[in-house]
C-alpha cells in the first residue's frame, strides 16, 4: 500500500497524542483556516511561577496533516515555558513529523497558530501583556478574522457575517448576520466572546443576532 504521507505523520494521524479538552483551561484558542475549512482547538494548563506548560490538549476538525501537526505540536510544547513554546514553528513541527507535503502547509500551520493564540489567551488572562493599547474596532476585527463560519469556509469578517462592530467604554458590540437559532450560532458566539473578552480594557461583549434572517 502506498500512502500519501510518511510513517511518522501516519502514526500521529492514527494515534494522535493529547487529544481532547481541558476543563477550566488557563489558555485556550480555536483557530480556523478559511482556505480549506479545517479547525483546531488548543487548551493549556500553565504553572504560574515559571509559566511552564504542564498540560496541553487539542481537537481537530481537519485533514490528516492537520491532525498529525496538532498531535506533534502538543508533544513539542509540553513542559516548555510559554516563551519557549511561542518559538515553535511550522518547520519544527514538520521536521518532527519527518516532513509534510508543501501543499498541506496551510492546514498544518493552523495547529501552530492555535498554540500561539492559546498562549496569547493565557497572557491576556494573566495580565502578562506588556503593551496596553486601547482596544479599537480594527483590533476586534483582526481577532475575528480567526473565527470561521463553517458554512462558507470563510472567516466571519471577510465572509460578511459580521455586519457592524462598535467599541464604547469597555463594551464591544458586534452585529452578526445569522438568526440566533442557527446551527452554528452558539459555536460562533462562544468563539467571538472568547477572543474579545480577554482584551485588557474590555468589560463586556454584546452579540446582536439578526432576527430577519430566521
Amino acid at each position, binding site marked *: *500500500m502506498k500512502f500519501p504521507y510518511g510513517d511518522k505523520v501516519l502514526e500521529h*494521524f492514527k494515534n494522535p497524542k493529547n487529544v481532547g479538552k481541558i476543563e477550566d483551561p488557563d489558555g485556550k484558542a480555536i483557530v480556523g483556516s478559511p482556505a480549506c475549512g479545517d479547525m483546531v482547538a488548543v487548551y493549556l494548563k500553565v504553572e504560574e511561577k515559571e509559566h511552564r506548560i504542564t498540560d496541553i490538549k487539542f481537537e481537530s476538525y481537519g485533514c490528516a496533516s492537520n491532525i498529525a501537526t496538532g498531535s506533534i505540536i502538543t508533544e513539542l510544547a509540553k513542559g516548555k515555558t510559554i516563551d519557549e513554546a511561542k518559538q515553535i514553528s511550522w518547520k519544527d513541527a514538520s521536521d518532527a513529523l519527518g516532513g509534510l507535503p508543501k501543499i498541506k502547509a496551510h492546514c498544518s500551520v493552523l495547529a501552530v497558530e492555535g498554540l500561539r493564540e492559546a498562549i496569547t489567551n493565557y497572557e491576556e488572562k494573566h495580565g502578562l501583556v506588556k503593551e496596553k493599547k486601547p482596544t479599537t474596532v480594527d483590533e476586534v476585527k483582526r481577532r475575528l478574522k480567526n473565527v470561521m463560519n463553517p458554512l462558507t469556509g470563510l472567516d466571519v469578517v471577510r465572509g460578511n457575517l459580521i455586519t457592524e462592530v462598535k467599541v464604547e467604554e469597555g463594551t464591544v458590540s458586534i452585529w452578526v448576520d445569522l438568526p440566533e437559532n442557527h446551527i452554528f450560532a452558539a459555536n460562533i458566539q462562544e468563539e467571538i466572546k472568547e477572543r474579545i473578552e480577554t482584551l485588557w480594557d474590555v468589560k463586556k461583549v454584546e452579540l446582536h443576532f439578526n432576527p430577519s434572517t430566521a
Partner: protein
Amino acid sequence: MPEIVYMDNAASTRLDERVLEAMRPYLFDSYAVATSEFGHSMGIEAKETLEKARSSLASTLGISPEELVLTSGDTESSNLAIKGVALSLGEKKGKHIVTSKIEDFPVLNSVKAMERYGYKATYLPVDSAGILDIGELERSITKETILVSIQHSNQEIGTVQDISAIGKLCHEKGALLHVDATHTYRRLDIDLAKLPVDLMTFSAHTIHGPKGIGGLFVRKGTPLGKWMDGGFQEFNLRAGLENIPGAVGFAKAAELVTNEENERLASIRDKLISRLLKEVSETTLNGHRTKRIPQNVNITFHYVEGESITLHLDMRGIEVSTGSACFSRSLEASHVIMGIGGNHERAHGSIRYSLGRFNRMEEVDVVVDAMKEVISRLREISPLRKEEKT
C-alpha cells in the same frame, strides 16, 4: 493486508478479463493501421474490425455507426462537442453557451476556455438535490445560444437529469444539446433514436473497459468543426491513429453490462445508503433519493473532514473519494456540493462510494462497520462534535 474494497469506480474501473481477451488479438496479431479498401490485407482487416466495433457500440444507442466518433475518452469527446460546435456556429449564429454549475471538468473547463475566446457562458443553478431548473434553462437560451451542455448524471452525487425534457426545450428554442453520459452509458437506458439530443459523450473506462477510448455521438447533420488536425480519420472529425484494440475493448465492455448487473448495483447502493443513514448519526445524503444512477452513493458525515476519513478507510483497504478541499489537488471544495447548497461544511465531510461490477453485497457490511468506527474516532477529536454522538 486487508482485502481491498474498491468503491471508486466513478474515477475508473478494473478492466474485465473478457475485455482484455477480446482486445488481445488486436495488440499482437492484427496490429496494423486501419487503411482504405485499397490498402494491404492487414490494414483492410483492421478497418473491418474497427467498423464492427463501431457498429456494435452504435446498436446499443439506437444510432447509425456513422454517428459515432471514437475518441480518447470523455474529456476529448466533450472538448470536441463544445469547441467543435463553437468552431462551426460561433461566427454564423452567436457566441453563447449554456451549461450547469455542477458539470464535470471536461465540460466546465471547455466552456470556460471558450469564454477566453470571447464567448459568453451561462452556468445554470441546480436545486438542493442537483436537479436542473428547467424554467431557468428556458430563460437562459437566447437567439445567440448555439449550444446547451448538460450532463445525464452527476459524477459526484449521481443525480439524473430529465434529458428528454431538456432536449425538447433546447430544440424549441433553436439550440443544440450536448449531453455528458460518462456515468450513465449502459447503466441507464439511452435510446438516441427517441431522445432529442444532438451530441453525447461516452467513455469506456467507467464500464470496465480500457482507459484511453471513448466516443462522441454526433447526430447526422449536426454542425461540428474539427479541432484535432491531422489525417482524415473518424469521418474527418478527429485526426489520429485509430485505437483499434481500444475500440474492440469498448464494444466488449458495453456488451458485458446487463440489466441484471445494474439492478444488483442498485440494490447494493440502496442497502449502503439506508444502513449508513441509519447506523451513523448526523449524516446527510447528497443527491436525489430516486433520480440517481445505480452505482452512486454520496453522504456527508458532519463534524469530520473527508481526507481524514478516506485515509483511515484506505488503511482498512477501502477505497473511496471525498469532496473535501483537503483532498483535491486545487485545495478547492467540491463545486458540486457547493452547487447544491453552497455549504462548505457539507463538502468537508462528504464521501462518495461508487460501485462497479466487482463489488459484492457483503462489502456493505465491511464498509458500514469501518465507517462507524472511523467516524466515531474522528468525532472524538473534533471540536465541533456534540456530546455522545457517534
